């Protein structure tokens, strides 16, 4: 009986999720100069193909946490509501000479740099579950 209840609960939840989806219009995260650090973190995670490393509906905090685990932290730390400046982008690169580049050039270099770090470490240490959740088979 419990199985049926659990299965039914899942079914209703998932169906309800899709029923609530209205017509699509504009993407939420637009790459543009002046965007917030939180939005940039979300964009960056998607750009390096790491969306699946976040919770399914993960937000800016999850993206920032993920990037922090990679070691991608601008000087002063991530401030999700502050603007993503060229200085912050140069910090992510760890290259002082990059501060003279344009915002677009920096974004591309940051994407490539974080992509490299992610590719190196994606074989490694990421765990999607918090210690507070129930245990699952380790795979």
């Amino acid at each position, binding site marked *: 009986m419990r199985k049926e209840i659990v299965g039914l609960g899942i079914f209703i939840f998932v169906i309800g999720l899709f029923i609530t989806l209205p017509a699509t219009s504009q*993407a939420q995260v637009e790459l543009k100069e002046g965007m917030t650090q939180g939005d940039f973190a979300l964009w960056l995670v998607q750009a390096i193909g790491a969306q699946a490393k976040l*919770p399914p509906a*993960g937000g800016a905090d999850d993206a920032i946490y993920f990037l922090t685990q990679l070691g991608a932290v601008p000087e002063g730390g991530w401030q999700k509501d502050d603007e993503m400046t060229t200085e912050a982008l140069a910090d992510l690169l760890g290259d002082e000479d990059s501060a003279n580049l344009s915002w677009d050039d920096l974004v591309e270099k940051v994407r490539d740099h974080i992509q490299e770090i992610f590719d190196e470490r994606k074989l490694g240490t990421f765990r999607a579950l918090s210690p507070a*959740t129930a*245990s699952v088979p380790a795979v």
Partner: protein
Amino acid sequence: MKKGQLGNKEKRIHQILIVIFTALLILPTVAFADEGPAASGGTASGGNGGGGGFFSRIGDSLSNLTSGLPSIFQELSPADVGHKPRVKPHFAFNQGFHSNVRLGGDQKDAAWQARVAPGITVSIPSGKLYSEVDYTYGFSTTQGRKTNANINTHNVSALARYDLTVDTTLGVANNIQLSEVPGAGGDTFILETGTAQVTHRIAPKLTASAWDTFQWFKDQTETETVPFVAKDKYNNEFIDNGVGISLGYDATKDLKVGPSFTWNIRNFEDNNDKDYWQISPGVNGSYRLGPKTTVNGNFGWAFRRFDKKGSTTTGRSESELVYGAGFNHKLGRKLIWSVQYAKTLQDTFDTSFVNRDTPEAVALDNLDRDFRVIKSHRVGGSATYHLNEKNSVSAFGDVQFLFADDVDNTITKRENREKAMEVGARYTYRFNRYITFDVLYAFGRRFERENRPPQPGVGREDYTFHKVTGGVNIAV
């Protein structure tokens, strides 16, 4: 052949497919490489400068290959991320030597191990909806004097994320893994995990999240392969459904804190001694200690109520405080290091046969299948130093302490007290943006186990191992 098993014919097909896939990846590379740098119009980003060497030609050829592919196969420009679909093939190969592949077994055996894993990821953004599907096939082999195992694995992941409003996001993710169990005559296990989640920003500083995770684990290992009397309890099939909710409040620019609550029900197919429900209220927080240091932690209570008693008088429930803490620090511009500690309440699974994509401390993850609850203290750390844009070194270390009572061992009724550790180091060389080589050395040891005499084929014996692996990862 039993339902769900992979026969010899299927195995051969799998192996042929992997050879074809590998050839499809390598042959165009070689073909383009023969055209030389002139055909590329330049080297790949990060290439070694057109020196005309073998690796240079591979880099050039990969650049040529990607430029010749339809646009959905090419790396997107930053402006196109989130707007255009993309197909991304990936490929991994590694091999190495393991000094003791039968961890915890009564017979030691050194072996050569190799794994090849091609895959493909398709991502399709469409307005507010982002969808992603990944399929990865894996073939691994372990060849030792006493061990001969070949494993085919399939891993399919899917993700859909929808930004309902500026403040509300819906997401659904699903992962299914199908793998053979080595040494079990082609038997398979299945692990299905589905998660649906909603996050909503209630106020500028307050975010809520609710989720439901469903999991189905089916291990079809033949009971005949289990040299043990409690065969009916060795079936490890279960379903689990967990719901949870959490709040995150940005108390300051540096401090985020909030409560969480999870409720799980787990139901085993045969071994109903392990059935339970569990609630776990707690508090999570993170604090930015300085410009380069982040601290996080959680504290809560886990109460697990079993459907059956562990014995006639005791063992109906488990009540434990659960907590953890960690910090992450960036030292200079090139070194990032972190330390984590967690006390958790777990039950146990036999997943030693899973060839995981997580080389770090893999031996610690497998807790066999005897216990319905086990208290785990685990502390670990890692550090990565980027020598330059092409070279990096990293190190990791993990120690785990396990405590379990005899009433919670559903098979042998014996307690467990054990410690295990694993340390290692890796060197990574990034040839260019597509190709990465790495070499790993790891050492592991379990140096204390449950207080009982060894029982051949069952149980958790002490072990010591050394492992050296090297490989290449390619992502076009």
